[in-house]
């Protein structure tokens, strides 16, 4: 199981409201931890899924990925879906994966835009809420 850590500056609670107890804390934010599904980097299944356009979001993910990164399309789709539905109201601040640094890079690029830079690698001093050093 490939683990991915994501810096979350604006986490949210189950009702969709911002997790103010974390956001108002002097720390940077918290960490969302992903354990990726086995297919997250399956090139064959990714190409099959990208061969149709029934899911507009996946199609957009596929168009944005470099050819050599298209194998990560389903992994990016899963993180995108989970992130916005239940974990945060803002794009990730950083992404790290010791097991798959390439996937971390692809995720960081996916969540970066002209107005937001998502970094690769956990910055010094950034810890999970409630963790020592928080």
């Amino acid at each position: 199981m490939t683990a991915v850590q994501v810096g979350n500056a604006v986490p949210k609670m189950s009702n969709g409201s911002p997790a103010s107890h974390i956001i108002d804390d002097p720390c940077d934010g918290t960490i969302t931890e992903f354990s990726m599904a086995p297919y997250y980097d399956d090139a064959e299944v990714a190409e099959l899924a990208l061969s149709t356009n029934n899911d507009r979001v996946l199609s957009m993910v596929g168009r944005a990925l470099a050819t050599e990164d298209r194998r990560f399309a389903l992994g990016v789709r899963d993180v995108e879906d989970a992130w916005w539905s239940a974990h945060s109201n803002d794009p990730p601040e950083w992404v790290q994966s010791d097991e798959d640094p390439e996937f971390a890079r692809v995720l960081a690029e996916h969540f970066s835009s002209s107005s937001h830079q998502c970094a690769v690698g956990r910055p010094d001093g950034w810890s999970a809420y409630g963790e020592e050093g928080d």
Partner: protein
Amino acid sequence: MLYHEHYEPPADRWLEGEALLTNGGRDSVHKQIADTAAQPASFNYVALTANTSAASASDTTLAGEIVTGGGGLIRGQGTFAHTNGTNTSTITKTHTANGSDSLPVVVHKIGIFNASSSGTMGFETVLNADATLSASGDNLTTTDTLTAG
């Protein structure tokens, strides 16, 4: 308090459905939290069905579960995520239909299990909008949110 809700954005929509923690799932959660004996496996396998019956806490299987051998719509392990300091975690799964699947199929309900076959069905969710998969390559991404505390 522990409950379960469903989120599914196929294409450009955000859909939600009312999910149900089954009796078996409730027992397993208690054992996972505190049992001193061997604990039940985690619930992260997602199954699909076209069956249109209502979800029930007493259900132990997903009626009409898609089990086509070699198909892409069969039960499979999803992506787990949790944000430290919050009361939610998610299971996200993208099913991709392939040439072995019997299509078209209209997915109406999903089940979350703790094994790739058999096992305990911990959650059952009726989608609030059916998802139609018509051709090989068509895919469906579902995210279930588990809330505790």
